[in-house]
């Protein structure tokens, strides 16, 4: 039972996602899970998913946030317009340039926050205004577009079917099957090593259930993507990001340092961790991901706009909190951020299909956010005394 208890939050979230999904499946008479809609759902939410990954890491680092990501995304979109459309640079080179600009924006924040002790709220609020202004200056009040198709492919394209399936995309099935196989192999290997090391592995029923679930989910995706246009390119990008960042967060020293510095910076410092460096790079990383999200958004719209990305920061923050981030820092998983963003995405998409207005969707998103965190706080306070409001950077503004 302790296994369930330790992972309650994580499972609770997935269960909530499934319940919400089933609810809309029934309410929309199956429209929400039609293959075409699934593709749509992922395309619609792709940039929030990218941002949520970075935002989760920022929140883990002692409950900070980054308010500027929407503006950095707008600036990234504007710069890709300048590089690709106006200056006609090759797409790959432009993408690298834009990512470097994103990193520079992040480094600007990280410098003031980590090395000059300026409160994160002020720095990123200033950055929000500053970079929005720069984006508007760069675009000079106009939109830039259209983009060459190679750039659009990033957000709108699909993985080509090399097997030439006609009514059904075989490539999607092959890829999903390959992933399923890889997951099963990895899980069994992990279990074997656990055994060998005499470490308690996941109880067998849970292990089997987990594998069945993963395979079933992948099968579902194979069907969805196969029956529509195939696997969206953006899905491949998201998959790679999810794997890389989960790996970094869970397995590497860097990840450990992030969680430690976020949970207790003083202890971490006295254990030889360079906390300032950790915070600095977390913001640099956020800048890079914001630039990536900005390009994805621009590619999807096929237009660079000065007002792009307004409110992205709040959606990303909401996704991270729904996904189990703690306002005191030190907690949260990359997968949580992704599931949190999907919860919001499915609610919005489902309600649109039901004809519920965008307005109502906002209200519900707000209430879901509050409910998720209240659930967290109460679940935690049952185990211990309530966390004091003054204990973190976020609740206290440093």
């Amino acid at each position: 039972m302790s296994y369930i208890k330790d992972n309650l939050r994580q499972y609770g979230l997935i269960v909530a996602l499934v319940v919400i999904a089933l609810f809309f499946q029934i309410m929309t008479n199956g429209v929400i899970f039609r293959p075409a809609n699934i593709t749509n759902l992922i395309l619609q939410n792709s940039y929030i998913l990218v941002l949520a990954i970075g935002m989760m890491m920022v929140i883990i680092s002692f409950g900070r946030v980054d308010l500027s990501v929407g503006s950095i995304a707008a600036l990234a979109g504007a710069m890709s317009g300048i590089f690709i459309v106006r200056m006609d640079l090759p797409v790959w080179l432009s993408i690298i340039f834009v990512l470097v600009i994103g990193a520079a924006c992040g480094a600007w924040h990280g410098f003031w926050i980590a090395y000059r002790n300026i409160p994160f709220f002020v720095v990123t609020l200033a950055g929000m205004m500053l970079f929005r202004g720069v984006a508007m200056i760069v675009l000079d009040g106009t939109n830039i577009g259209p983009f060459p198709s190679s750039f659009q492919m990033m957000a709108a394209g699909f993985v080509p079917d090399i097997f030439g399936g006609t009514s059904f995309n075989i490539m999607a099935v092959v890829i999903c099957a390959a992933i399923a196989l890889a997951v099963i192999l990895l899980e069994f290997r992990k279990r074997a090593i656990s055994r060998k090391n005499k470490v308690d592995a996941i109880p067998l029923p849970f292990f089997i259930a987990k594998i069945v679930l993963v395979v079933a989910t992948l099968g579902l995706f194979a069907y969805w993507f196969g029956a529509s246009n195939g696997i969206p390119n953006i899905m491949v990008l998201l998959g790679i990001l999810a794997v890389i960042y989960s790996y970094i967060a869970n397995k590497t020293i860097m990840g450990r340092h992030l969680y430690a510095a976020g949970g207790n910076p003083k202890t971490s410092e006295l254990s030889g961790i360079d906390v300032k460096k950790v915070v600095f790079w977390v913001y640099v990383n956020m800048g890079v991901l914001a630039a990536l999200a900005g390009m994805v958004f621009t590619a999807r719209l096929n237009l660079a706009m000065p007002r792009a990305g307004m409110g992205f920061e709040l959606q990303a923050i909401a996704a991270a909190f729904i996904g189990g981030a703690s306002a005191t820092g030190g907690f949260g998983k990359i997968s949580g951020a992704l599931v949190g963003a999907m919860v919001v995405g499915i609610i919005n998409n489902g309600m649109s299909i039901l004809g519920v207005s965008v307005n109502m969707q906002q209200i519900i998103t707000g209430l879901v956010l509050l409910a998720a965190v209240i659930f967290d706080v109460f679940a935690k306070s049952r185990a211990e005394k309530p966390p004091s409001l003054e204990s973190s950077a976020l609740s206290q503004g440093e």
Partner: protein
Amino acid sequence: MGTLEMKSITKRFDRVLALNGVNLTAADGKILAVVGENGAGKSTLMKILSGVYPHGEYEGEIFYKGEACRFRDIKDSEKRGIVIIHQELALIPYLSISENIFLGNEQAKNGVINWHLTYQKTAELLEKVGLKENPHTLVENIGVGKQQLVEIAKALSKRVEVLVLDEPTAALNDIESENLLTLLLELKKEGITSILISHKLNEVLKISDQITILRDGKTVESFPNENVDENRIIRGMVGRDILDRFPARDVEQGEVMFEVKDWTVYHPEIADKKVIDNINFHVKKGEVVGIAGLMGAGRTELAMSLFGGAYGSKITGTIIKDGKTLMLKSISQAIENGIAYLTEDRKQYGLLLDETICRNISLANLKSLNTGLAVDEFKEKRVAEDYRGKVDIRSRDVQQHVKNLSGGNQQKVVLSKWLFADPETLILDEPTRGVDVGAKYEIYLIINELAKQGKCVIVISSELPEVIGLSDRIYVMNEGKMVGELSKEEATQEAIMECIMNH
């Protein structure tokens, strides 16, 4: 005015018995000193008296002027004229002196403050406590000694009859302490009863009329301050035979392994304040060296400044290890060079409370667990299990979160973290603070084991019996300087106190 009595006070925190039938009597207009070791229950008792722990959260009765008192909160006890000054000052840094003095007790009519009256009264109160400061000055801009006087002025503003002071001179220098004690004697002349909690026995002897000793949550004895000396009090405080508390150690000491020369450190914020002044000391292989001193003597500052400059600015001097001079620019370099520092405040500086035992133990030496890109979690678990067995951490498994462990087991987790970092020199700052007696003994055994392995161990402790019982050699610090070095044979509490006093 009247006598204050606390009768058979018992207080539990969860399962831990903090106070067990304590009795205390403060005679009208006298100064009562309450003394005892750390964890004896002094502060808890005073929190009960002042209503911080309201009636119902403890057993027993409080009588004042013959009436039973059942305080619901601080305001309640203040209404009866019982005012407490907490060990951590309860002042708001960004408010002025007069705003602080009348905080919660504003000179107001219909919610509107009369600032003229406030300032006038503040001036009177400041005059009374002998503080020459403008009432408008912000509290953050005056030193700790003056802040303590502001606290007393705050108490006086409430028409205090019984003044409770919890370690009022702990953070003060000699002159400030002297002023404060004089002030207490003057208040006594005005008929105010004081209860003084203090570690500084010379102060207790100087001004108190009656001395009450607490030990392990019980009143041990209470006697008038007549023909009493410090030894008499210490005997009461410690109670048991000191020798038995420390396991014997039989270790061959090697050559000098760790040496510090001309170590000087300045305050990190106040540029011209020397915190550590030209300190020299050395530790041999397999030796346990104690550093004794009063609170604020600079022991923690010394330790942290040696630990890769974790404290202080403008650090000068040399650290020589094994004949090699170390240049330590960061904490990680210090760790790489075999130095470990176990903090005095494990919750704030030593642990990731929300993490597992396993992840706490590996924190300072993750590099050794690295395989290619990733941390080898299986090896990590094995290491943690290993230490859990070695130092006997009592827990379900290594996946348990450290916040759910007892103080002693938490301390063992921090110790394990540093053992895993494989240091040659360990600086242990208050290694048994907030740890129960059983776990204390186990920690002493670990220290002995470390000495046997030929490591250099430096123990900082405020408990003199502990320093004496553990150490092969003792350095005495006061006001940032080394003021004495005592061998095991010479080391007695009197000798240590003498070093401090004669300085």
